[in-house]
């Protein structure tokens, strides 16, 4: 058995923040080492969920786009939404998932702008769905030591 990366990062963070930082005189370098330790705790948290949260989010965004196809009033946007909704993540490296996530979130912004200007019950419902996803996406990224 070998320690998994999240476990290692947590232990390394603790080592840096207590033993290493504690051995340094108070000052800039000591604070820098402590911050590196804090970063490692966050990276440990992020490592575990990095692929999962992107896969989940990309799936949610494609579902919203599929719902939106029949609501939007712009042909170009409708075509982009339809194409994105048909998409699928086939490369599960974090960088590839992040790339598709950024593309989907860019399209989400475009859809949100468009929907805000539509005057229909369906548009309001879609807008609520988008806000729900924005809250969910923020929760997916939440870090244990964040100030809020």
């Amino acid at each position, binding site marked *: 058995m070998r320690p998994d990366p999240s476990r290692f990062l947590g232990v390394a963070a603790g080592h840096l923040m207590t033993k290493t930082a504690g051995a340094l005189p108070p*000052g*800039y370098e*000591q*604070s*820098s080492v402590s*911050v*590196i330790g*804090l*970063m490692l705790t*966050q990276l440990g948290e992020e490592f575990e969920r990095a692929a999962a949260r992107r896969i989940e989010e990309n799936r949610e965004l494609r579902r919203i786009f599929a719902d939106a196809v029949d609501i939007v009033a712009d042909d170009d946007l409708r075509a982009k939404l339809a194409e994105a909704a048909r998409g699928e993540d086939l490369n599960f490296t974090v960088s590839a998932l*992040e790339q598709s*996530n*950024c593309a989907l*979130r*860019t399209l*989400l*912004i475009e859809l*949100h*702008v468009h929907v*805000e200007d539509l005057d229909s019950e369906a548009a309001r419902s879609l807008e609520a769905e988008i*806000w729900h996803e*924005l*809250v969910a*996406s*923020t929760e997916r*990224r*939440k*870090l244990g*030591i*964040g*100030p*809020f």
Partner: protein
Amino acid sequence: MTGAGLRDLDLRDDTLGNAMTSLDSRLAAYIAHRIPDAEDIVVRDLERIFGGASRETYRFWLDYRQGAESVSRPLILRRDPPGSLIETDRATEFGTYRAFFGTAVPVPEPLWLEEEASWLDHPFFVMEQLLGMEAGPTQVVAPPYDQYAEQMAQQKWTILGEIHRADPSALGLDSVMEAVTPDACWRRELTHWERTINEDELCPQPVIRAAIRWLRRNPPPPPERVGVVHGDYRTGNFLVDPEGVIRAILDWEMAHLGDPLEDLAWSLNPVWRWAGDERAGGLAPREEAIEIWEKASGLRAESDALRWWEVFSSVKGQAIWISGGKEFTDGKNQDMILALSAWLMGNSQDRAALYTLGHFT
């Protein structure tokens, strides 16, 4: 003790700047230039302070002899870095310290502003260092300072009211700060920070983009009066003595003329809840903070206008974290605080924006 004197340096030599290699000796040479009748100038115990993300901040001791008098002073050097969280004009920051020094708004004494980069590679200024103080945002809301939370809150928002009560023209700040008409305050600030996001974002920001659109659809009324806006008024940007008394307001690098509600809203942003509860800035309930400020400033915090500035404060905050993250990623400034801020504060800022917009409880 580490120190650098002028004994080995020829101040008349034009190539002096090239010959000096250490910051302390270069700083000593600069001070000799500023105090020409000083002798035996020594800069010692020069040490960088962590957390000055917009400027490199150093503390040091300056010793020198002036006639029969021996002088020893603790000072602060604030030097522009290659990249930072925010790009600001150090002349404005220095001018603001100078304007408020000796007034009801406590600030350290500013000494010298140097815009010529040849002395220390980047522009900088030097000011007084106050000893025995605490500024850390998590420290001043924790023991032993937490016993003074009410007192600090009273003082914190009273001083903010004093800043907003001040007449920028009488302080001479209209010569270092760009004028703005009351109805242009919100648009100028929003445009500036939106541009920062446009230029620096590394990934799409759907929450903050939605917040920006909301802000443009719901502009606030003009302020009762245009005043001095500190620009970063929060727990962490003031010095507290061991008895919990605020002795100086720091970090004026984003100071400008504008709507005073901008500062009040910034101080109330949920990301500064350092005590881990709902108190604004980790010090006082929100309504209490507003009441103190209204009493001190003589202004009213109308709820819709304040809400606009609170949403704006999350846009501005996110712009700052994004900008710092880009500086770090580009390798222009690899101070760890930039990476930490982008990671830790970015998500909290989105949460704060959603909360203020009413989409998150």
